[in-house]
Protein backbone atom coordinates (compact mmCIF):
# COMPACT_ATOMS: atom_id res chain seq x y z
CA UNK A 1 0.00 0.00 0.00
CA UNK A 2 1.28 3.43 -0.92
CA UNK A 3 1.47 5.25 2.37
CA UNK A 4 -0.93 8.09 2.69
CA UNK A 5 -2.89 7.94 -0.55
CA UNK A 6 -6.29 9.50 0.02
CA UNK A 7 -9.02 9.16 -2.58
CA UNK A 8 -11.21 12.22 -2.19
CA UNK A 9 -14.24 10.80 -3.96
CA UNK A 10 -15.44 7.26 -4.36
CA UNK A 11 -19.10 6.55 -5.04
CA UNK A 12 -21.56 4.55 -2.97
CA UNK A 13 -25.17 3.77 -3.70
CA UNK A 14 -27.32 2.29 -6.42
CA UNK A 15 -27.58 3.74 -9.91
CA UNK A 16 -29.55 1.95 -12.61
CA UNK A 17 -27.29 -0.20 -14.80
CA UNK A 18 -24.06 0.84 -13.10
CA UNK A 19 -22.00 -1.08 -10.56
CA UNK A 20 -22.20 -0.54 -6.84
CA UNK A 21 -20.00 -1.73 -3.99
CA UNK A 22 -20.84 -2.57 -0.41
CA UNK A 23 -18.41 -1.46 2.24
CA UNK A 24 -16.39 -4.67 2.33
CA UNK A 25 -15.96 -4.79 -1.44
CA UNK A 26 -15.07 -1.13 -1.45
CA UNK A 27 -12.33 -1.71 1.11
CA UNK A 28 -10.98 -4.60 -0.98
CA UNK A 29 -10.97 -2.34 -4.03
CA UNK A 30 -9.05 0.31 -2.12
CA UNK A 31 -6.60 -2.34 -0.89
CA UNK A 32 -6.05 -3.57 -4.44
CA UNK A 33 -5.38 -0.03 -5.63
CA UNK A 34 -3.09 0.86 -2.76
CA UNK A 35 -5.34 3.56 -1.34
CA UNK A 36 -5.13 4.05 2.40
CA UNK A 37 -8.17 6.22 2.94
CA UNK A 38 -11.17 7.25 0.88
CA UNK A 39 -13.95 9.76 1.18
CA UNK A 40 -17.21 8.15 0.10
CA UNK A 41 -19.89 10.18 -1.65
CA UNK A 42 -23.50 9.10 -2.11
CA UNK A 43 -25.05 8.56 -5.54
CA UNK A 44 -28.44 7.52 -6.91
CA UNK A 45 -31.52 7.63 -4.71
CA UNK A 46 -29.39 8.67 -1.78
CA UNK A 47 -28.72 11.88 -3.68
CA UNK A 48 -32.10 12.27 -5.33
CA UNK A 49 -34.59 11.51 -2.56
CA UNK A 50 -33.34 9.48 0.40
CA UNK A 51 -30.63 11.80 1.68
CA UNK A 52 -30.81 10.86 5.34
CA UNK A 53 -30.77 7.13 4.60
CA UNK A 54 -27.61 7.56 2.55
CA UNK A 55 -25.95 9.86 5.04
CA UNK A 56 -26.63 7.46 7.91
CA UNK A 57 -25.50 4.43 5.94
CA UNK A 58 -22.21 6.05 4.94
CA UNK A 59 -21.68 7.28 8.50
CA UNK A 60 -22.09 3.70 9.70
CA UNK A 61 -19.43 2.55 7.21
CA UNK A 62 -17.09 5.22 8.51
CA UNK A 63 -17.82 4.39 12.13
CA UNK A 64 -16.93 0.76 11.41
CA UNK A 65 -13.74 1.69 9.55
CA UNK A 66 -12.59 5.04 10.93
CA UNK A 67 -9.01 4.42 9.84
CA UNK A 68 -10.04 3.87 6.21
CA UNK A 69 -13.21 5.78 5.37
CA UNK A 70 -14.73 9.22 5.68
CA UNK A 71 -17.76 10.51 3.83
CA UNK A 72 -19.52 13.34 2.10
CA UNK A 73 -23.13 13.97 3.11
CA UNK A 74 -25.79 15.28 0.77
CA UNK A 75 -29.08 17.08 1.18
CA UNK A 76 -31.47 18.27 -1.47
CA UNK A 77 -32.00 22.00 -1.01
CA UNK A 78 -35.63 21.46 -2.00
CA UNK A 79 -36.19 20.03 1.49
CA UNK A 80 -35.72 23.54 2.89
CA UNK A 81 -35.38 23.65 6.67
CA UNK A 82 -35.39 19.85 6.78
CA UNK A 83 -32.29 19.92 4.59
CA UNK A 84 -30.52 22.29 6.95
CA UNK A 85 -31.48 20.13 9.93
CA UNK A 86 -30.30 16.93 8.25
CA UNK A 87 -27.02 18.53 7.24
CA UNK A 88 -26.35 19.70 10.79
CA UNK A 89 -27.09 16.19 12.00
CA UNK A 90 -24.82 14.63 9.39
CA UNK A 91 -21.93 16.97 10.23
CA UNK A 92 -22.36 16.18 13.92
CA UNK A 93 -22.22 12.49 12.98
CA UNK A 94 -18.91 12.97 11.20
CA UNK A 95 -19.56 13.95 7.59
CA UNK A 96 -16.57 15.87 6.21
CA UNK A 97 -18.39 18.02 3.69
CA UNK A 98 -21.47 18.50 1.53
CA UNK A 99 -21.85 16.81 -1.84
CA UNK A 100 -24.25 18.33 -4.35
CA UNK A 101 -25.40 16.92 -7.69
CA UNK A 102 -27.50 19.73 -9.17
CA UNK A 103 -28.63 17.81 -12.24
CA UNK A 104 -30.00 14.99 -10.09
CA UNK A 105 -31.31 17.12 -7.26
CA UNK A 106 -33.01 19.53 -9.60
CA UNK A 107 -31.65 22.98 -8.96
CA UNK A 108 -29.32 25.48 -10.57
CA UNK A 109 -26.12 26.28 -8.73
CA UNK A 110 -27.04 29.97 -8.59
CA UNK A 111 -30.53 29.41 -7.25
CA UNK A 112 -31.35 31.17 -3.96
CA UNK A 113 -32.72 27.80 -2.91
CA UNK A 114 -29.19 26.71 -2.14
CA UNK A 115 -28.22 29.57 0.14
CA UNK A 116 -29.66 28.28 3.46
CA UNK A 117 -27.86 24.96 2.93
CA UNK A 118 -24.59 26.73 2.16
CA UNK A 119 -25.04 28.81 5.31
CA UNK A 120 -24.99 25.59 7.33
CA UNK A 121 -21.86 24.40 5.55
CA UNK A 122 -20.10 27.69 6.19
CA UNK A 123 -21.07 27.65 9.87
CA UNK A 124 -19.29 24.30 10.12
CA UNK A 125 -16.27 25.29 8.03
CA UNK A 126 -16.66 22.34 5.65
CA UNK A 127 -16.03 22.05 1.89
CA UNK A 128 -18.64 21.52 -0.81
CA UNK A 129 -18.15 18.90 -3.55
CA UNK A 130 -20.20 19.64 -6.66
CA UNK A 131 -20.58 17.28 -9.61
CA UNK A 132 -20.12 19.57 -12.59
CA UNK A 133 -20.43 19.18 -16.35
CA UNK A 134 -24.15 18.89 -16.92
CA UNK A 135 -25.32 21.90 -18.92
CA UNK A 136 -27.88 24.28 -17.43
CA UNK A 137 -27.58 23.02 -13.86
CA UNK A 138 -23.90 22.56 -13.07
CA UNK A 139 -21.49 24.24 -15.43
CA UNK A 140 -17.97 25.02 -14.19
CA UNK A 141 -18.48 28.76 -14.58
CA UNK A 142 -21.68 28.56 -12.56
CA UNK A 143 -19.69 27.02 -9.74
CA UNK A 144 -17.05 29.72 -10.19
CA UNK A 145 -19.74 32.41 -9.86
CA UNK A 146 -21.03 30.68 -6.74
CA UNK A 147 -17.50 30.67 -5.35
CA UNK A 148 -17.30 34.43 -5.91
CA UNK A 149 -20.59 34.86 -4.10
CA UNK A 150 -19.51 32.67 -1.21
CA UNK A 151 -15.84 33.45 -0.51
CA UNK A 152 -16.10 31.84 2.91
CA UNK A 153 -16.71 28.41 1.39
CA UNK A 154 -14.40 26.06 -0.51
CA UNK A 155 -15.82 24.25 -3.52
CA UNK A 156 -14.45 21.13 -5.21
CA UNK A 157 -15.01 20.99 -8.98
CA UNK A 158 -16.27 17.40 -9.05
CA UNK A 159 -15.96 15.60 -12.41
CA UNK A 160 -14.05 18.60 -13.79
CA UNK A 161 -16.92 19.77 -15.96
CA UNK A 162 -16.82 16.58 -18.04
CA UNK A 163 -18.07 16.75 -20.75
CA UNK A 164 -17.70 19.09 -22.87
CA UNK A 165 -16.68 21.87 -20.50
CA UNK A 166 -12.97 21.10 -20.63
CA UNK A 167 -12.31 24.54 -22.11
CA UNK A 168 -14.10 26.16 -19.17
CA UNK A 169 -12.23 24.23 -16.53
CA UNK A 170 -9.14 26.35 -15.97
CA UNK A 171 -10.91 29.69 -16.42
CA UNK A 172 -13.42 28.53 -13.80
CA UNK A 173 -10.91 27.08 -11.33
CA UNK A 174 -8.68 30.16 -11.46
CA UNK A 175 -11.59 32.45 -10.63
CA UNK A 176 -10.76 32.46 -6.94
CA UNK A 177 -8.74 30.72 -4.26
CA UNK A 178 -11.76 28.87 -2.91
CA UNK A 179 -12.03 26.53 -5.89
CA UNK A 180 -10.33 23.13 -5.77
CA UNK A 181 -9.75 20.65 -8.60
CA UNK A 182 -9.98 16.87 -8.54
CA UNK A 183 -7.97 14.56 -10.75
CA UNK A 184 -10.57 12.01 -11.87
CA UNK A 185 -11.17 11.87 -15.62
CA UNK A 186 -8.24 14.18 -16.35
CA UNK A 187 -5.17 13.22 -18.31
CA UNK A 188 -1.66 13.43 -16.96
CA UNK A 189 -0.87 16.64 -18.79
CA UNK A 190 -3.96 18.36 -17.44
CA UNK A 191 -3.21 17.18 -13.91
CA UNK A 192 0.23 18.77 -14.29
CA UNK A 193 -1.45 21.89 -15.65
CA UNK A 194 -3.88 22.06 -12.75
CA UNK A 195 -1.05 21.83 -10.24
CA UNK A 196 0.90 24.51 -12.12
CA UNK A 197 -2.08 26.85 -12.26
CA UNK A 198 -3.58 26.28 -8.83
CA UNK A 199 -0.79 24.85 -6.69
CA UNK A 200 -0.87 21.29 -5.40
CA UNK A 201 -2.76 22.49 -2.35
CA UNK A 202 -5.80 22.96 -4.56
CA UNK A 203 -5.72 19.62 -6.39
CA UNK A 204 -7.22 16.44 -4.92
CA UNK A 205 -6.69 12.89 -6.12
CA UNK A 206 -9.98 11.11 -6.74
CA UNK A 207 -10.94 7.98 -8.63
CA UNK A 208 -14.76 7.86 -8.77
CA UNK A 209 -14.59 4.11 -8.13
CA UNK A 210 -16.55 1.91 -8.82
CA UNK A 211 -17.55 3.59 -12.07
CA UNK A 212 -14.00 4.44 -12.95
CA UNK A 213 -10.61 2.65 -12.74
CA UNK A 214 -8.58 3.33 -9.60
CA UNK A 215 -5.29 1.96 -10.90
CA UNK A 216 -5.53 3.89 -14.17
CA UNK A 217 -6.34 7.13 -12.37
CA UNK A 218 -3.36 6.68 -10.05
CA UNK A 219 -1.20 5.97 -13.08
CA UNK A 220 -2.25 9.29 -14.59
CA UNK A 221 -1.08 11.14 -11.48
CA UNK A 222 2.23 9.28 -11.67
CA UNK A 223 2.59 10.26 -15.32
CA UNK A 224 1.95 13.92 -14.53
CA UNK A 225 5.60 14.16 -13.47
CA UNK A 226 4.88 16.21 -10.36
CA UNK A 227 7.67 17.11 -7.97
CA UNK A 228 7.56 14.87 -4.91
CA UNK A 229 6.04 17.47 -2.60
CA UNK A 230 3.33 18.27 -5.12
CA UNK A 231 2.64 14.61 -5.76
CA UNK A 232 2.32 13.96 -2.03
CA UNK A 233 -0.11 16.85 -1.69
CA UNK A 234 -2.29 15.70 -4.58
CA UNK A 235 -2.32 12.10 -3.36
CA UNK A 236 -3.22 12.92 0.21
CA UNK A 237 -1.98 16.12 1.78
CA UNK A 238 -4.56 18.34 0.15
CA UNK A 239 -7.36 16.02 1.19
CA UNK A 240 -5.99 15.84 4.71
CA UNK A 241 -6.06 19.61 5.00
CA UNK A 242 -9.39 20.17 3.27
CA UNK A 243 -11.35 17.27 4.65
CA UNK A 244 -9.67 16.67 7.97
CA UNK A 245 -8.79 13.15 6.95
CA UNK A 246 -5.92 11.99 9.14
CA UNK A 247 -3.06 10.31 7.31
Amino acid sequence: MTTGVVDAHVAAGDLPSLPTLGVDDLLHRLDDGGVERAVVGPVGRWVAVDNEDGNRTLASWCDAHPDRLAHWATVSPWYGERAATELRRAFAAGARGLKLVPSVQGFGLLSPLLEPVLDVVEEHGRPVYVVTGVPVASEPLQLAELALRRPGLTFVMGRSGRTDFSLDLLPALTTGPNLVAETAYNGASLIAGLVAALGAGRVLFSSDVPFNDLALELERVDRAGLPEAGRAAVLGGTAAALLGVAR
Partner: protein
Amino acid sequence: MTFVDLHTHLPAQASPEWDRWRRPDVLAAMDRLGITRAAVMTLDGLGYDAVAGNDVIAQACAGSDGRLLPLGTVDPRRPDAADELHRCADRGFHALKLHPWMQGFSPLEAYMEPVAAAAIERGLPFVVHDGTPPYASPLQIARLAARFPELTVVLAHGGLFDLWEDAVAAALRYPNVHITMCGTAPRAIFREIVRRVPVAKLTLGTDSGFGDPDLSRHRLSVHRAILAELPDGDAAALAHRNAERLLGLT
Protein backbone atom coordinates in the same frame (compact mmCIF):
# COMPACT_ATOMS: atom_id res chain seq x y z
CA MET B 1 -5.38 -8.13 -29.88
CA THR B 2 -4.95 -5.41 -32.49
CA PHE B 3 -7.09 -2.31 -32.81
CA VAL B 4 -8.49 -0.04 -35.44
CA ASP B 5 -8.85 3.36 -33.79
CA LEU B 6 -11.95 4.98 -35.22
CA HIS B 7 -11.35 8.35 -33.59
CA THR B 8 -8.10 10.30 -33.80
CA HIS B 9 -7.37 13.90 -34.68
CA LEU B 10 -4.66 15.70 -36.53
CA PRO B 11 -3.58 18.44 -34.10
CA ALA B 12 -4.68 21.99 -34.75
CA GLN B 13 -2.02 23.97 -36.61
CA ALA B 14 -1.94 26.64 -33.90
CA SER B 15 -1.12 24.06 -31.22
CA PRO B 16 2.34 22.97 -30.05
CA GLU B 17 1.35 19.40 -30.92
CA TRP B 18 1.22 20.38 -34.59
CA ASP B 19 4.90 21.27 -34.60
CA ARG B 20 5.74 17.90 -33.09
CA TRP B 21 3.49 15.84 -35.38
CA ARG B 22 5.53 13.49 -37.56
CA ARG B 23 3.96 10.63 -39.48
CA PRO B 24 6.67 8.09 -38.57
CA ASP B 25 6.30 8.98 -34.88
CA VAL B 26 2.52 8.56 -35.06
CA LEU B 27 2.89 5.18 -36.77
CA ALA B 28 5.50 4.08 -34.21
CA ALA B 29 3.19 5.09 -31.37
CA MET B 30 0.40 3.07 -32.99
CA ASP B 31 2.75 0.08 -33.19
CA ARG B 32 3.51 0.34 -29.49
CA LEU B 33 -0.21 0.32 -28.67
CA GLY B 34 -1.21 -2.43 -31.10
CA ILE B 35 -3.18 -0.07 -33.36
CA THR B 36 -2.97 -1.26 -36.95
CA ARG B 37 -4.97 1.55 -38.51
CA ALA B 38 -6.47 4.81 -37.33
CA ALA B 39 -9.13 7.11 -38.72
CA VAL B 40 -7.69 10.64 -38.83
CA MET B 41 -9.96 13.65 -38.53
CA THR B 42 -9.33 17.34 -38.83
CA LEU B 43 -9.67 19.84 -35.98
CA ASP B 44 -8.90 22.97 -37.99
CA GLY B 45 -11.38 21.94 -40.66
CA LEU B 46 -14.16 21.90 -38.09
CA GLY B 47 -13.40 25.35 -36.79
CA TYR B 48 -12.11 27.23 -39.83
CA ASP B 49 -12.18 25.91 -43.35
CA ALA B 50 -13.43 22.42 -44.11
CA VAL B 51 -11.92 22.27 -47.60
CA ALA B 52 -8.48 23.33 -46.45
CA GLY B 53 -8.76 20.97 -43.49
CA ASN B 54 -9.50 18.08 -45.84
CA ASP B 55 -6.46 18.91 -47.94
CA VAL B 56 -4.22 18.78 -44.86
CA ILE B 57 -5.76 15.48 -43.77
CA ALA B 58 -5.06 14.00 -47.19
CA GLN B 59 -1.43 15.08 -46.97
CA ALA B 60 -1.05 13.76 -43.43
CA CYS B 61 -2.40 10.32 -44.31
CA ALA B 62 -0.56 9.94 -47.63
CA GLY B 63 2.48 7.70 -47.42
CA SER B 64 1.24 5.81 -44.37
CA ASP B 65 0.71 2.61 -46.38
CA GLY B 66 -2.99 2.76 -45.63
CA ARG B 67 -2.57 2.86 -41.87
CA LEU B 68 -3.77 6.44 -41.45
CA LEU B 69 -7.27 6.59 -42.85
CA PRO B 70 -8.44 10.04 -43.91
CA LEU B 71 -11.87 11.23 -42.79
CA GLY B 72 -13.21 14.40 -44.34
CA THR B 73 -15.61 17.07 -43.22
CA VAL B 74 -17.90 19.64 -44.78
CA ASP B 75 -19.51 22.81 -43.51
CA PRO B 76 -23.15 21.75 -43.91
CA ARG B 77 -24.35 25.34 -44.13
CA ARG B 78 -22.42 25.96 -47.32
CA PRO B 79 -24.37 25.39 -50.54
CA ASP B 80 -21.40 23.47 -51.96
CA ALA B 81 -21.17 21.09 -48.97
CA ALA B 82 -22.26 18.09 -51.03
CA ASP B 83 -19.65 18.95 -53.66
CA GLU B 84 -16.94 18.80 -51.01
CA LEU B 85 -18.25 15.43 -49.86
CA HIS B 86 -17.92 14.15 -53.42
CA ARG B 87 -14.38 15.53 -53.54
CA CYS B 88 -13.59 13.60 -50.32
CA ALA B 89 -15.01 10.42 -51.81
CA ASP B 90 -13.06 10.92 -55.04
CA ARG B 91 -9.79 11.10 -53.14
CA GLY B 92 -10.50 7.94 -51.15
CA PHE B 93 -11.65 9.34 -47.81
CA HIS B 94 -13.38 6.74 -45.66
CA ALA B 95 -16.08 8.70 -43.84
CA LEU B 96 -17.28 12.19 -43.04
CA LYS B 97 -16.72 13.70 -39.60
CA LEU B 98 -19.27 16.22 -38.38
CA HIS B 99 -19.19 18.15 -35.13
CA PRO B 100 -22.42 20.07 -34.56
CA TRP B 101 -21.25 22.39 -31.79
CA MET B 102 -17.87 23.18 -33.29
CA GLN B 103 -19.37 23.70 -36.74
CA GLY B 104 -22.47 25.49 -35.52
CA PHE B 105 -25.28 23.47 -37.02
CA SER B 106 -28.07 21.16 -35.97
CA PRO B 107 -28.33 17.68 -37.50
CA LEU B 108 -32.04 18.35 -37.96
CA GLU B 109 -31.71 21.40 -40.19
CA ALA B 110 -32.73 21.19 -43.85
CA TYR B 111 -29.29 21.79 -45.30
CA MET B 112 -28.24 18.38 -44.02
CA GLU B 113 -30.39 16.73 -46.70
CA PRO B 114 -28.13 17.18 -49.75
CA VAL B 115 -25.12 16.22 -47.65
CA ALA B 116 -26.81 13.06 -46.43
CA ALA B 117 -27.96 12.22 -49.97
CA ALA B 118 -24.40 12.61 -51.26
CA ALA B 119 -23.06 10.44 -48.43
CA ILE B 120 -25.53 7.70 -49.34
CA GLU B 121 -24.61 7.95 -53.00
CA ARG B 122 -20.91 7.60 -52.26
CA GLY B 123 -21.23 5.11 -49.40
CA LEU B 124 -19.55 7.32 -46.81
CA PRO B 125 -20.70 7.00 -43.21
CA PHE B 126 -21.21 10.03 -40.99
CA VAL B 127 -19.14 10.06 -37.81
CA VAL B 128 -20.87 12.65 -35.63
CA HIS B 129 -19.68 14.09 -32.34
CA ASP B 130 -22.36 13.39 -29.77
CA GLY B 131 -23.15 13.62 -26.10
CA THR B 132 -23.29 17.37 -25.62
CA PRO B 133 -26.40 19.44 -26.18
CA PRO B 134 -27.15 21.49 -28.26
CA TYR B 135 -27.04 20.25 -31.02
CA ALA B 136 -25.15 17.03 -30.51
CA SER B 137 -27.59 14.93 -28.53
CA PRO B 138 -27.70 11.29 -29.64
CA LEU B 139 -31.41 11.45 -30.33
CA GLN B 140 -31.06 14.53 -32.53
CA ILE B 141 -28.41 12.75 -34.56
CA ALA B 142 -30.49 9.58 -34.61
CA ARG B 143 -33.41 11.45 -36.17
CA LEU B 144 -31.15 12.34 -39.06
CA ALA B 145 -30.39 8.63 -39.39
CA ALA B 146 -34.10 7.87 -39.25
CA ARG B 147 -34.80 10.27 -42.14
CA PHE B 148 -32.07 8.59 -44.21
CA PRO B 149 -32.25 4.85 -43.51
CA GLU B 150 -29.56 4.13 -46.11
CA LEU B 151 -27.11 6.45 -44.37
CA THR B 152 -24.73 4.93 -41.82
CA VAL B 153 -24.39 7.17 -38.77
CA VAL B 154 -21.80 6.66 -36.05
CA LEU B 155 -22.29 8.36 -32.69
CA ALA B 156 -18.66 9.25 -32.12
CA HIS B 157 -18.72 9.20 -28.31
CA GLY B 158 -21.64 7.00 -27.26
CA GLY B 159 -23.34 9.87 -25.46
CA LEU B 160 -20.39 10.66 -23.18
CA PHE B 161 -21.17 11.01 -19.47
CA ASP B 162 -24.72 12.17 -19.41
CA LEU B 163 -26.45 10.95 -22.57
CA TRP B 164 -25.15 7.40 -22.92
CA GLU B 165 -28.62 6.00 -22.20
CA ASP B 166 -29.84 8.06 -25.17
CA ALA B 167 -27.03 6.71 -27.35
CA VAL B 168 -27.99 3.15 -26.40
CA ALA B 169 -31.63 3.89 -27.17
CA ALA B 170 -30.71 5.35 -30.55
CA ALA B 171 -28.53 2.38 -31.48
CA LEU B 172 -31.26 -0.06 -30.48
CA ARG B 173 -34.06 1.77 -32.29
CA TYR B 174 -32.39 2.68 -35.58
CA PRO B 175 -30.61 -0.03 -37.60
CA ASN B 176 -28.24 2.49 -39.16
CA VAL B 177 -27.01 4.06 -35.90
CA HIS B 178 -23.68 2.82 -34.54
CA ILE B 179 -21.57 3.80 -31.55
CA THR B 180 -17.87 4.41 -31.10
CA MET B 181 -16.86 3.95 -27.48
CA CYS B 182 -14.62 6.96 -27.10
CA GLY B 183 -14.67 9.60 -24.41
CA THR B 184 -14.24 10.51 -20.79
CA ALA B 185 -17.08 8.32 -19.56
CA PRO B 186 -15.83 5.65 -17.16
CA ARG B 187 -15.42 1.97 -17.93
CA ALA B 188 -18.66 1.09 -16.13
CA ILE B 189 -20.63 3.04 -18.74
CA PHE B 190 -18.78 1.49 -21.68
CA ARG B 191 -19.31 -1.95 -20.19
CA GLU B 192 -23.03 -1.31 -19.99
CA ILE B 193 -23.14 -0.12 -23.60
CA VAL B 194 -21.49 -3.40 -24.63
CA ARG B 195 -24.00 -5.34 -22.57
CA ARG B 196 -27.00 -3.66 -24.18
CA VAL B 197 -26.06 -2.87 -27.77
CA PRO B 198 -25.35 -5.61 -30.35
CA VAL B 199 -21.60 -5.81 -30.67
CA ALA B 200 -21.80 -5.45 -34.47
CA LYS B 201 -22.76 -1.81 -33.91
CA LEU B 202 -19.80 -0.94 -31.69
CA THR B 203 -16.32 0.34 -32.42
CA LEU B 204 -13.45 1.80 -30.37
CA GLY B 205 -11.72 5.15 -30.46
CA THR B 206 -9.16 7.07 -28.43
CA ASP B 207 -9.56 10.75 -29.45
CA SER B 208 -5.77 10.90 -29.60
CA GLY B 209 -4.35 14.10 -31.04
CA PHE B 210 -6.85 16.09 -29.01
CA GLY B 211 -5.60 17.22 -25.64
CA ASP B 212 -3.61 14.94 -23.40
CA PRO B 213 -0.77 13.11 -25.21
CA ASP B 214 -1.33 10.15 -22.86
CA LEU B 215 -4.94 9.76 -23.99
CA SER B 216 -4.55 6.87 -26.42
CA ARG B 217 -2.58 4.75 -23.95
CA HIS B 218 -5.09 5.45 -21.18
CA ARG B 219 -8.19 4.83 -23.25
CA LEU B 220 -6.81 1.61 -24.73
CA SER B 221 -6.18 0.40 -21.19
CA VAL B 222 -9.87 0.88 -20.50
CA HIS B 223 -10.84 -0.76 -23.79
CA ARG B 224 -8.58 -3.76 -23.15
CA ALA B 225 -10.28 -4.37 -19.81
CA ILE B 226 -13.65 -4.45 -21.57
CA LEU B 227 -12.41 -6.69 -24.39
CA ALA B 228 -11.03 -9.14 -21.85
CA GLU B 229 -14.58 -9.79 -20.66
CA LEU B 230 -15.87 -10.71 -24.14
CA PRO B 231 -15.78 -13.93 -26.18
CA ASP B 232 -12.94 -13.82 -28.74
CA GLY B 233 -15.20 -13.24 -31.72
CA ASP B 234 -17.00 -10.32 -30.10
CA ALA B 235 -13.73 -8.84 -28.91
CA ALA B 236 -12.26 -8.96 -32.42
CA ALA B 237 -15.41 -7.40 -33.84
CA LEU B 238 -15.24 -4.57 -31.31
CA ALA B 239 -11.49 -4.06 -31.54
CA HIS B 240 -11.15 -3.93 -35.31
CA ARG B 241 -13.55 -5.87 -37.54
CA ASN B 242 -16.53 -3.54 -37.18
CA ALA B 243 -14.38 -0.50 -37.86
CA GLU B 244 -12.87 -2.16 -40.91
CA ARG B 245 -16.35 -2.84 -42.24
CA LEU B 246 -17.63 0.69 -41.51
CA LEU B 247 -14.64 2.28 -43.19
CA GLY B 248 -14.88 0.10 -46.28
CA LEU B 249 -11.68 -1.82 -45.66
CA THR B 250 -13.15 -5.29 -46.07
